[in-house]
C-alpha cells in the first residue's frame, strides 16, 4: 500500500478529471434535488392532502432504495429503446445526474421534513401575523430549519457521491484515450481498479474520495457555523 501512496500511480490530469466529474454530477444532482425536495418537505410538513401517507411511505422507501436498481430504471428510460431515447442521454453525465437526483431526493426530503416539522407553530403564526404571504412564511420556516436542511443536503450529497452502481450502468465509465474522464467518477474508477485486481491503487482513489467528502462536509458545517456566529 505504501509504494502506491509514495508514487502516485495516476496521471495528474486523470485524477483531476474524475474528481471534476464526481463533483459535477453529484453537485448538480444534489442542487436540483434540494430545489425539488424543500418545497415538497414544506408542503408535506404543513399541508394536509389526500395521499399524504402514501407520499411519506414512498419517501421512506426511497431512502433505502438500491442504487443499482435506480440505475437500471434510468437505463431503460434513456436507452435508445426507451421513452427518452431520442435525447441520446445514454452514457452521458446528464443521465448520471438523473439517477443521482432520484437517489438523493428521498433522504433530502425526509430529513428536511423532520427539520421543518420541528419549527414551532409560533414562528409560522408570527410570520403570517406580520403580513407575510405563503412564500414568506415558507422562507421563514426554511431559515429557522436551516441546520436540519443543511444536514439533509449533506446526507443527499453523501448518498450521491458515494454510489457506484447506477452511474456505472448509465454512464459507462468512459474516459478519453488520453485519460480525461467523460463519465468516470471516483467510485467507478475504484470499481475499475478493483475489477482488475489492483486493490492498492483502488485504495488510493478511495482515500481521495473520503478526503473529498470530508472537505465538502467541513465547508458546509463551517458555512453554517459562521451563520450561527452572526445570529
Amino acid at each position, binding site marked *: 500500500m505504501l509504494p502506491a501512496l509514495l508514487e502516485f500511480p495516476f496521471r495528474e490530469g486523470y485524477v483531476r478529471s474524475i474528481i471534476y466529474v464526481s463533483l459535477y454530477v453529484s453537485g448538480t444532482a444534489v442542487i436540483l434535488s434540494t430545489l425539488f425536495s424543500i418545497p415538497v418537505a414544506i408542503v408535506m410538513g404543513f399541508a394536509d392532502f389526500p395521499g399524504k401517507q402514501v407520499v411519506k411511505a414512498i419517501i421512506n422507501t426511497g431512502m433505502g432504495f438500491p442504487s443499482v436498481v435506480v440505475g437500471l430504471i434510468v437505463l431503460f428510460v434513456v*436507452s435508445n429503446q426507451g421513452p427518452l431515447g431520442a435525447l441520446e442521454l445514454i452514457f452521458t453525465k*446528464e443521465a448520471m445526474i438523473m439517477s443521482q437526483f432520484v437517489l438523493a431526493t428521498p433522504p433530502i426530503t425526509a430529513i428536511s421534513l423532520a427539520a421543518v416539522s420541528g419549527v414551532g407553530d409560533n414562528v409560522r403564526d408570527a410570520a403570517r401575523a*406580520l*403580513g407575510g404571504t405563503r412564500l414568506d412564511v415558507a422562507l421563514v420556516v426554511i431559515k429557522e430549519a436551516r441546520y436540519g436542511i443543511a444536514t439533509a443536503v449533506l446526507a443527499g450529497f453523501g448518498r450521491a457521491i458515494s454510489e457506484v452502481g447506477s452511474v456505472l450502468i448509465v454512464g*459507462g*465509465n468512459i474516459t478519453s484515450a488520453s485519460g480525461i474522464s467523460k463519465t468516470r467518477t471516483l467510485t467507478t474508477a475504484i470499481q475499475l481498479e478493483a*475489477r*482488475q*485486481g489492483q486493490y492498492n491503487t483502488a485504495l488510493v482513489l478511495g482515500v481521495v474520495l473520503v478526503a473529498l467528502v470530508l472537505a465538502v462536509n467541513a465547508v458546509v458545517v463551517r458555512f453554517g457555523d459562521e451563520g450561527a456566529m452572526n445570529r
Partner: protein
Amino acid sequence: MSKQRFPTEDQNESRSDTTVSRRSLLAAGAAAGIAGLAGCSGALGSGQSGQDGQDQAGVAGETLTLTTTTSTYDTGLLDAIHPSFEEMYGVTVDAVAQGTGAALESARNGDSDVVMVHARGLEDEFLRNGYGVNRRDLMFNDFVIVGPESDPAGIQGMSSATETLTTIAEAQAPFVSRGDNSGTHTKELNLWEAAGTEPGGDWYQETGTGMGEALNVANQQGAYTLSDRGTFISQRSEIDLTILVQGPIEGGPESLSNPYGIMAVNPGVHENANYDLSMAYIGWITSPAAQDAIADYQMNGEQLFFPRAVSEDPDFQQYVPEGWSGDSDDE
C-alpha cells in the same frame, strides 16, 4: 428574527421592501437556475459537422460509441491506438467496457454504434438476428489455464484443453469461474461442454467478477482458472499462479484461441446508429497501419494481440455466422 412588536407604518413599508426584495431574489435565482439548466442540454444537437469546412471529414466533431469487453479494455490497447483514429477524422471514440453480454445488449438496443467482442457464438447470434453488419475478424490472442505451481491435478503441459478440464473435475481441484456471461466465461462453458463434463460442486466456484478479481480469488485459494493471456500477464507480478496449459500462441491447442471480432450496428434496425463513423472505424482498425499498431502493442514487454484482419488469402467465414453457406437453406 427581530422582537415581535406591533408594526408601525414605517416598519410595514420596510418589511414589504424586504419582502419584495426577498421575493425578487428568489425569482432571480429561479430564472438563473433555469437558464443554467438550459446550458446542460448539451446532449441535444451534438454531432454537428465541422464548421470551418476546410478539408474536414464529414464526420468531424462526432462521437463514436464503441462497446467492448472488460478484458479488452483493461489491456489498454484501445487507449493506445484510438488517438490516431481520432486525429485522422477529428472525432471522439467513447470506449465503454461493459463485458461481452452487456456490450452486445447495448448494441442490440442501439445504444452503441460498433461492438468489439471475442465470443464467436454470441457474435453469430447477433448477426443472424440482423443487429450487426460487416463483421470482420480483428485480432486474436489466447487463453491460458493457470494454477498454483504445486499443480495438484497434474495438468502441466497438457495438449488438450478438454482433457485438462476433465482432469481438474475428476481431481475435484478448486477451480474459479468468471460466471458472468463474459467472453472468457463463454469459452470456459464451451470447453466444459466439449469435454462432456458438467462442472459443479464445492470445488467449482463462480465469482461473477472481472478477470483480475477472479485471478486474485484463484491466487488466494490456490485454485485453477481460465484466463485470457493479457490479463494474466498484467497481473503476473502480483500473484503466485503460473501458466500450466496455454493456447496456440505458444503451440497449445486451437481450442484455447481467443479471436476478436468487430461489427457495426445495423442502421436498418437502428436509424440513429452512427453507421458512417462505425464503418470508418472498422475500415481503419482493419487497415495495415492499425493492425501493425495492434501487433506492436506490448504489456510488460510481451506482445498481447496478433493481428488477423490483413491477409493475402480470402477469409469469407469472417463475414458470416460460422458454418453459414450460400448453398444451404440458411437465411
